[in-house]
């Protein structure tokens, strides 16, 4: 009995009239959890009942707490006939199970009915008391935090990234059960909603278990999807990245106690990543006290759940973290393997160190490490080879025996080994994939990016016979992941980042797709702390590996002597090719990096991740979409699958060509956030590729587009072509101006390209497998032709070019991207507007593919135009995270749904007063919080040092590095590069200046004030009476101008709405409009009830709409998710700090207005 769930029903309001005679309602409430039900009294004749019930208590297993929602049903009492249901509220109590999330759910929640929509609201109070459970075989994973955010959440820092976690759960779909024929639509919908709630709870719990086994305490980038397979069942699957996260507040004293470690590199970090300076683990002094402090910041009543998760498994959190800190000094390590490890571990714990040998090696570091470091470099070539061979399951055979074994262990990531120790685990495949659904990383984490890897597979669905053993579905995904892994390997990469999986289902055919970006990661974050001696030993090779990858960086030249570059991956580092240039997996044109001039870069880079914050970008970015519609023959079963399989490669090829051409047309050379969605229907296939194009300074300038006619005999034809050519050139020039792409003039020095002729290739590397598992890899190069020459040999090509040119330019004042941040825009104002727009288009004629293409493309363009018009009052503004999803709900229907956020920005406003506020916060931190007073006093004594380290000092250090650098270069090429360094230094200096401001703000975040504020926020809210608290929503992981001070837990909601009076509800548009508005309202209400004031990383993952106008019916399913957070306006933090300076008693009044 490890948990007691308590619920209290306070009141209702705005209830519908249930008794026509009196125009009133006799309402009562049933509160159900698991199989236990409680009832309130009937509150007669009122539309605003005040039940004020007792506390209903449920004593349940924590396993059930995770799986089950609390179900609240509001009914109208009827003396003579059956009680009528008014509606239901499902409350996910998961946020209450985590010590760091919400503590109570309290507020007005909409009462929802699947037929009538929202019918009034109910005020409830829900609490959970968890007891410590020491059972090591338990099935629950309470305390593991879940984040939808695909980067390290803002108020945390990643101690460790453990790796990929995935799970899927299957069940029969209630809609397709026999009983559905005799039950009402309402009962059927509710059964479905409830089942999906249960399944997601179960899925989350299972993922949580895996995370605990890996030694993590959180899942970042949690992505849960439903596959409504119809007859064959319902699949709920999820992927995520297991991490060990630490509240950032604990890092503050660590930094403070060792001011010597704060280097300019530290200042360059983006605070948002919750990233910690490399010196921290070392400098934190005795690690155990640090941990203790971390714990002390939780309220005592809550800390047990955290402890329970650590004490009942061997993979306890506390010792592990300690282990990391002590790691370098453990003597046993050296004895086991080659001499490298012990020397390197410190190195990648503090990568900046090697460059600053003047820094006194702190604490336990042996003086000889620099020497050993040098030694490691000599090994590195071999290691690099080993790295590229990673994950191949045996093919990496070049290394020396022990080394190879060690490497493999490492690269196959943490869980593999964990599996050995925990034999009870049923799912053994987990650790095999070095996949990361994350799209943004702490600086320095992402070393190199290879390119996009993707895999698709067409499958025939069959009934899931045994829901407890979802083997088939698992095996399918297994195949795809293997394929992705091998693609990554071919690109010389050890990991896949920005990884995502999706499906498209039509009748019994299903396309499974996975895509990601092959990359080489710094092992700094991936290494696992020693859990016991055995583990520590096996983990040791990590450092060997990391040496390999760091060698690459070290050899980048600039990084070796310019210390800061090594820590924060330089603006160009991630562009450098990770593969061997003599052994390129596909034809490509390589040039020397336009930033550092030392490493090879490709001509074009496609990725699925967000633009790294440290990347050097010229100008601004823009949304680039490739859209394609292809007709296909109607077919059944296997025949259909074959037809689709055959069509896929062409579809992908054309999407890719379109993307390339559009990228060129905008004068850009890289795509970020690439997402290719392929949707299948009875008679057509839809492909939509969206990405954000940018001009990476490190990559060569893209060439233009040449048009060539095949039949040059005709003069008018020639003219036509030259006209078109002119148009294209004009467009490119215009776009360059529009996106401010003025790359610095550089001396061309294309040397050593394996393919001398000027051919331009993409990084898109993919293949698809058919149901027969046959893997066919597609060469996307255009044979022997020049890819940039568009040949007009038929009308199709003309159409293509027209399509290329008819893309509507974004109106003045608007920018758009599908990534988190827009390069070149920083000064966001606080005005944000999240929106969802859905359009369904009916094609009522049999059309050619060409015609379909046009229609589809116009549909997307018009949708964008509408968005710009709608949001015109926000100009200047950027539509960020534009997420398009396409579907073919039935024959001749195309559905496009967009969710995005419009954010205003200020053209003039400069970054200001960050430093000031940082200092204020420190003072505030000391004065304000009693609980952590001790903690802060210590902080106070030491803090001044990192704080004043702003631009001037940073610059001077850079300067000194420059001189050091200059000395170490070989002189032959010195003159050549000098100019570019200086340029780069200017850039860096700029970054540093900015960075220092941001670092101080990250300390604000770290201050204990936010905790206090969150409490006051809550209390203020209750005072404010009837007015509804504003809840912001955004698909991004941050809120401009505000600090997220607390994550309250994941929001994952599933709703079904059905109507049998479609016309009366305003037709399909009226119906869906109301439903989406209701979904927003319910999300907001649940977030507000958790005490939050925003949802970040919000996404609408499913919007399935079905209609039958003849029967006047429609049904819609929507699944949304996001992270509930509390944020505080930066300006308010400021004002509060002023207040607190004058009078400590007046704490945080400003929170109310948020």
């Amino acid at each position, binding site marked *: 009995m490890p948990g007691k769930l308590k619920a209290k029903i306070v009141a209702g*309001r*705005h209830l519908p009239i249930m008794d026509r005679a009196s125009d009133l309602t006799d309402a009562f409430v049933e509160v159900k959890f698991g199989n236990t039900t409680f009832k309130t009294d009937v509150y007669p004749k009122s539309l605003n009942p005040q039940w004020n019930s007792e506390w209903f208590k449920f004593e349940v297993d924590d396993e059930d707490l995770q799986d089950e929602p609390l179900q609240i049903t509001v009914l109208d009492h009827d003396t003579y006939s059956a009680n009528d249901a008014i509606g239901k509220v499902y409350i996910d109590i998961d946020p209450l199970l985590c010590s760091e999330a919400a503590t109570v759910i309290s507020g*007005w929640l*909409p009462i929802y009915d699947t037929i009538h929509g*929202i019918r009034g*609201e109910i005020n409830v109070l829900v609490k959970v008391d968890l007891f410590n459970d020491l059972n090591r075989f338990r099935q629950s994973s309470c305390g593991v935090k879940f984040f939808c955010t695909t980067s390290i959440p803002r108020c945390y820092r990643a101690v460790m990234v453990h790796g990929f976690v995935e799970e899927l759960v299957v069940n029969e779909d209630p809609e397709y059960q026999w009983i559905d024929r005799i039950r009402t639509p309402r009962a059927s919908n509710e059964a479905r909603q409830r089942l999906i709630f249960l399944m997601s709870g179960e899925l989350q719990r299972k993922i949580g278990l895996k995370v605990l086994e890996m030694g993590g305490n959180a899942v970042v980038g949690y992505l849960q999807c439903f596959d409504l397979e119809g007859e064959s069942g319902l699949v709920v699957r999820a992927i995520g990245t297991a991490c060990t996260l630490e509240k950032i507040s604990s890092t503050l004293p660590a930094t403070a106690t060792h001011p010597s470690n704060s280097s300019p590199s530290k200042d360059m970090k983006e605070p948002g990543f919750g990233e910690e300076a490399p010196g921290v683990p070392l400098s934190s002094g005795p690690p155990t006290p640090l941990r203790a402090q971390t714990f002390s910041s939780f309220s005592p009543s809550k800390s047990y759940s955290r402890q329970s998760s650590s004490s009942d498994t061997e993979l306890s959190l506390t010792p592990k973290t300690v282990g990391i800190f002590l790691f370098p000094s453990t003597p046993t390590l050296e004895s086991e393997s080659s001499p490298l490890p012990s020397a390197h571990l410190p190195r990648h714990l503090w990568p900046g160190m090697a460059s600053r040998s003047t820094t006194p090696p702190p604490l336990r570091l042996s003086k000889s490490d620099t020497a050993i470091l040098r030694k490691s470099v000599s090994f590195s070539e071999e290691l690099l080879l080993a790295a590229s061979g990673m994950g191949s399951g045996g093919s990496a055979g070049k290394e020396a025996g022990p080394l190879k074994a060690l490497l493999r262990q490492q690269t196959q990531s943490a869980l593999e080994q964990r599996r050995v120790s925990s034999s009870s685990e049923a799912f053994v495949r987990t650790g095999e994939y070095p996949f990361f659904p994350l799209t943004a990383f702490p600086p320095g984490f992402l070393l190199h990016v290879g390119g996009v890897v993707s895999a698709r597979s067409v499958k025939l669905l069959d009934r899931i016979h045994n829901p407890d053993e979802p083997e088939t579905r698992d095996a399918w995904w297994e195949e795809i992941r293997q394929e992705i892994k091998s693609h990554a390997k071919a690109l010389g990469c050890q990991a896949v980042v920005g990884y995502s999986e999706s499906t498209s289902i039509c009748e019994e055919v299903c396309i499974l797709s996975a895509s990601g970006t092959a990359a080489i990661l710094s092992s700094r974050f991936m290494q696992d702390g020693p859990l016991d001696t055995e583990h520590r030993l096996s983990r040791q090779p990590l450092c060997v590996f990391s040496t390999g990858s760091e060698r690459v960086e070290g050899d980048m030249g600039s990084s070796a002597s310019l210390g800061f570059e090594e820590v924060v991956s330089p603006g160009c580092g991630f562009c450098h090719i990770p593969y061997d240039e003599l052994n390129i997996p596909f034809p490509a044109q390589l040039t020397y990096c336009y930033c550092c001039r030392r490493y090879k870069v490709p001509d074009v880079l496609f990725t699925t991740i967000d633009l790294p914050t440290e990347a050097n970008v010229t100008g601004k970015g823009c949304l680039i979409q490739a859209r394609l519609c292809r007709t296909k023959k109607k077919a059944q079963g296997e025949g259909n699958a074959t037809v689709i399989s055959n069509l896929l490669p062409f579809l992908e090829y054309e999407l890719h060509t379109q993307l390339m051409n559009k990228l060129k047309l905008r004068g850009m050379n890289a795509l970020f956030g690439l997402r290719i969605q392929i949707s299948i229907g009875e008679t057509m296939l839809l492909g939509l590729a969206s990405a954000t194009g940018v001009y990476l300074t490190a990559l060569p300038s893209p060439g233009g587009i040449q048009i060539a006619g095949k039949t040059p005999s005709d003069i008018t034809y020639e003219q036509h072509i030259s006209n078109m050519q002119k148009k294209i050139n004009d467009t490119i020039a215009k776009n360059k101006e529009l996106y401010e792409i003025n790359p610095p003039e550089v001396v061309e020095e294309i040397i050593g390209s394996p393919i001398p002729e000027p051919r331009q290739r993409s990084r898109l590397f993919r293949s698809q497998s058919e149901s027969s598992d046959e893997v066919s890899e597609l060469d996307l190069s255009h044979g022997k032709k020049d890819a940039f020459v568009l040949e007009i040999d038929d009308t199709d090509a003309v159409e293509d070019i027209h399509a290329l040119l008819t893309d509507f330019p974004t*109106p*003045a004042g608007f920018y758009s991207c599908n990534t988190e941040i827009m390069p070149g825009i920083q000064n966001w104002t606080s005005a944000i*507007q*999240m*929106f*969802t*727009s*859905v*359009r*369904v*288009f*009916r*094609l*009522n*004629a049999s059309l050619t593919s060409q015609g379909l293409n046009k*229609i589809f493309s116009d549909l997307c363009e*018009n949708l964008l*135009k*509408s*968005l*710009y*018009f*709608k*949001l*015109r*009052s926000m100009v200047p503004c950027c539509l960020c995270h534009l997420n398009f999803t396409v579907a073919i709900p039935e024959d001749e*229907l195309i*559905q496009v749904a967009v969710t995005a956020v419009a954010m205003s920005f200020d053209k003039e406003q400069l970054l200001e007063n960050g430093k000031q506020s940082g200092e204020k916060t420190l003072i505030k931190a000391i004065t304000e919080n009693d609980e952590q007073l001790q903690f802060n006093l210590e902080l106070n004594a030491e803090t001044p040092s990192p704080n004043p380290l702003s631009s001037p000092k940073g610059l001077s250090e850079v300067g000194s590095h420059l001189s050091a650098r200059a000395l170490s270069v070989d002189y032959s090429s010195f003159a050549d590069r000098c100019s570019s360094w200086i340029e780069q230094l200017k850039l860096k200096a700029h970054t540093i200046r900015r960075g220092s401001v941001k670092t101080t703000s990250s300390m604000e975040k770290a201050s204990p004030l936010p905790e206090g504020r969150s409490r006051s926020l809550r209390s203020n809210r209750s005072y404010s009476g*009837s*007015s*509804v608290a*504003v*809840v*912001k*929503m955004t698909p991004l992981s941050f809120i401009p101008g505000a600090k997220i001070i607390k994550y309250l837990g994941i929001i994952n909601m599933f709703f079904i709405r059905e109507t049998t009076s479609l016309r009366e509800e*305003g037709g*399909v*548009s*009226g119906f*869906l*409009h*109301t439903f*989406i*508005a*209701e979904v*927003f*309202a*319910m999300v*907001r*209400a649940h977030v507000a009830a958790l005490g939050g004031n925003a949802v970040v990383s919000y996404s609408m993952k499913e919007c399935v*709409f079905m209609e039958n106008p003849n029967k006047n019916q429609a049904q819609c399913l929507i699944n949304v998710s996001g992270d509930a957070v509390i944020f505080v306006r930066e300006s308010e933090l400021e004002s509060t700090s002023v207040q607190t300076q004058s009078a400590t008693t007046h704490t945080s009044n400003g929170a109310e207005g948020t």
Partner: protein
Amino acid sequence: MSVELDVFVGNTTIMDKEVYQLWLNGYTVNDAVKVRIEGGVMEECEASAEVLLSDTMDQYRTFQMCERLLHHPAKLANQLLFQFHPQIPPDRQAMLIERYYAFDDSFVREVLGKKLSKGTKKDLDDVSTKTGITLKSCRRQFDNFKRVFKVVEELKGPLVENIRQHFLLPDQLARDYAAIVFFANNRFETGKKKLHYLTFQDFAFCAGQLINNWTLGAVDNIMDDMDVDLDKEFLQELKDLKILITDKDLLDQHKSLVCTALRGKTNVFNEMEANFKNLSRGLVNIAAKLINAKDVRDFFIDLVEKFIEPCRSDKWTSIDVNLYLTHYTNSAHILDTFKHHAVWTRYMGVIKSCILRMYHD
């Protein structure tokens, strides 16, 4: 090929004031699009007619969803479905409500004093053709009147305050609604040709006077007072004023007092003197008849026929009217045999201000 479904939902509800007004005015989507195109919004934002149509439909849907809440404006404050712009929620909501409850003077003149029944609603298409206001807008306005009427009819306490609280209307609008409710409840005749020259604001002013002085709520502030009905006791007492015209002596005395006071102060003294008995009879007769509900309905027409028209034909200025009425009222108090001072003051106070307001072309 057609757009089957097209929706846009923002986390904060976007409402275009201009489109809201078009919707309130009862324009169809297509007409609204035309108006918007003419307004030049397209050039401003590089939009096409298609985009404008889509936007207008979206806005219309939003308003329709919102309408349900606007019927009970108090709900708008704590509803969850719409989230208005965080910085200016009170303004925005107040604007929505105010505009929704705003009405056209030309429309209200048509239905003022009529029973707010289904029958009247059926005749709205005639009103629509007559006033040029769309039928949809007429219906909205009519339904607003009816809704407010229904709610405050049963309520105790001051009428204007009730309306303001229940419908969150600004003061002036609440007063106008109070007038509408008061007129509808007492069924004052306002449609006669002779009354056509009067604007709604004239009537609203008079209604305010009546509500403040002649209803039960006007005399005592007890909790269960009603502002909608005239004070029956007072109406009963008004009959006592008849003595001013039935008693010959009193009438003459009154006349001489008034004439003495007026002499030399006006250009129309002769007409005043000549007409005194007539006018006095008219006013006192109105007072005496008010006890009958039917005569209450004719209150305004009587005022016009019995007082305003004679004065106007004699070319009195409003200063003259004011002067006359002031002395007429005051002189009565000096009459030794006249004892109904309180009733007289209460009656004449309203009559004077109503006549002064109504005395124009």
